[in-house]
């Protein structure tokens, strides 16, 4: 039996090992290795609107892309760091959007007050509404979040409150186009890097512990329900901000804020972009949203495509783009003889 048995070996790149700890600042190469991808992301996304001066339609798409990126971020955080699968991101956008409309139109607050207020109060409201299912098993959270957007749509329609099917119109728009563009881009970057910091803090570790083994967390004297409350508040905060932004972007808050798109595209983005990496959520939405614009002509068929791709990724346990890229960046593979 002279078969040449080879196996694939994966080793950290030398450059990666040299960048651990204090040695990261020892030379430009290491610094660039660490900072490169991050700089690329930041510079890239900030420069993008300028590049797109030639195609103003696509500048609006960038805004929407960042909105979905934020929703995907909140889904990734909840699902992969805390273990709560939120099937209804539209719940957050709807609440945030409608609250911002109420603050802006009915209470007359200016836009730079209505958006922050809507974010905070929306997050609080969403957390309270999700409170009943937090002490329970994960499947209940999924069920309730799935149902809330659908139910709220029907309730608003049936009771004809908050503008009914017409929605609330007359919201202020942003003072100028640059603020409109960069408010969301900056916030997206802030939330991204903020969340990365957050999940590595001690409190973030506790939340990750809740996902891994919540009985053990209980036995350590921590009230798991309170932790989940905190996690939901953070995710709702991000989601409601997105909703408030969208409402002011279109100067209208209507039933479409609860649309299925806001629930499904974030999930698909996370699965495709790589769950658990936070950046993957952004990358996924950067891919899916422009794709969705291109496919706009197909109408509802878009959703069929997302769902098919999503199911494919889940079933074949694909790791997602970011994880693959990270692996390639940090490690190299080679065949060695056994």
């Amino acid at each position, binding site marked *: 039996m002279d078969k040449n048995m080879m196996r694939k070996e994966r080793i950290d790149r030398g450059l990666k090992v040299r960048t651990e700890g204090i040695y990261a600042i020892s030379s430009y190469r290491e610094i660039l290795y660490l900072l490169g991808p991050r700089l690329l992301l930041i510079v890239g996304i900030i420069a993008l609107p300028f590049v797109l001066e030639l195609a103003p339609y696509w500048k609006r798409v960038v805004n929407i892309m960042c909105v979905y990126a934020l929703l995907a971020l909140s889904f990734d955080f909840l699902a992969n760091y805390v*273990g709560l699968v939120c099937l209804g991101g539209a719940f957050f956008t709807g609440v945030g959007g409608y609250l911002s409309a109420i603050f802006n139109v009915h209470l007359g607050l200016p836009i730079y007050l209505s958006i922050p207020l809507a974010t905070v109060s929306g997050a609080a409201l969403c957390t309270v509404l999700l409170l009943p299912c937090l002490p329970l*098993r994960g*499947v209940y959270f*999924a*069920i309730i979040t799935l*149902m809330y957007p659908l139910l709220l749509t029907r309730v608003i329609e049936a009771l004809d409150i908050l503008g009914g099917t017409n929605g609330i119109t007359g919201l202020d728009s942003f003072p100028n186009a640059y603020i409109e563009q960069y408010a969301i881009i900056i916030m997206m970057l802030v939330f991204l890097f903020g969340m990365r910091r957050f999940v590595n803090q001690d409190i973030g570790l506790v939340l990750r512990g809740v996902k891994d083994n919540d*009985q053990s967390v209980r036995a350590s004297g921590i009230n798991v329900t309170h932790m989940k409350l905190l996690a939901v508040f953070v995710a709702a905060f991000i989601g409601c901000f997105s909703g408030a932004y969208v409402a002011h972007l279109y100067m209208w808050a209507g039933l479409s804020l609860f649309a299925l798109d806001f629930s499904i595209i974030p999930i698909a983005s996370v699965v495709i972009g790589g769950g658990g990496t936070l950046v993957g959520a952004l990358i996924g939405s950067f891919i899916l949203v422009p794709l969705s614009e291109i496919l706009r002509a197909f109408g509802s068929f878009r959703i069929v495509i997302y769902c098919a791709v999503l199911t494919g990724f889940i*079933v074949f346990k694909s790791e997602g783009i970011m994880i693959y890229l990270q692996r390639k960046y940090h490690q190299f593979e080679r065949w060695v003889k056994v």
Partner: protein
Amino acid sequence: MEILIYGIINSITLSLLSLGFALVYSISRVPNFAHGALYIMAGYITWLFLNKFIAFPYPLAIILAIGLTSLIGALIYRFVLIRIRGMEISEIIATYAIGLAILEGLRWGGLRGMTFTLPPFVAGSVQICGTNIDYQRLIIVGSGILIFALLYLFTHFNKIGLALRGIAQDERAAMMLGIDSDMTAIISLAIGSGLAGFAAILLLPLGSIIVEAGYNVLIFAIAVCVIGGLGSWGGTVVASFIIGFAQILTEAFLSSHYQMVVALLAIIVTLLIKPSGIFGKQKELEERV
């Protein structure tokens, strides 16, 4: 009196809708979020058989539609769910995605507007205790009771049915006795989808086939199962009566717009007071140590 009759009809309607979902969850622990989609799909298939292709006789169209729906349910398990069995999160997302794909695909494929209807089995109505009731609604009640009886007999006296109950009670123990968990899951998904189709062909003649109804069905099914207790068939029936009567009462005294609100409030109240539902067997809703 009217309230009583309509209450019964509404309750049996709800229980027909929810039984498929409850069955699949209790046996294979898979929350089948494609339930509503399968419901609408069955109705649409029946419509296609009746109108698009050579005009099938109604009973044949019904049988074919239910059969196809069961088959598709089983295929969903065999090709998708079987690979992610046990990972609840992935199961939920996958079934939800499939349900969405089916519903939105149907919408794209032409299911728009109110023109898709199924004819009732027997036209006309009858007077009972002073209230006018269509024959169709009577058939619904009758079929509902019949299907419950059949299910009861099946799961208590038929070998396969007993195997299903065994898996529902304790999967590991049943597997040790030689009951194939995957096979029973396929069967349970087939029966669950078939029940969705059965409910569809009974209930859709009352209105028209619209995609929104798919989401409504899913909401009601989940509401009934959560209140009755995920995993308990008796609880499903009891809960459907509770919600059914609650809805009829609100319709009578408030307005018909509040039906959804009733469902939502009922769920929240249940989760706050007795999370495992009325007959819920899972008292430890957190995982056992």
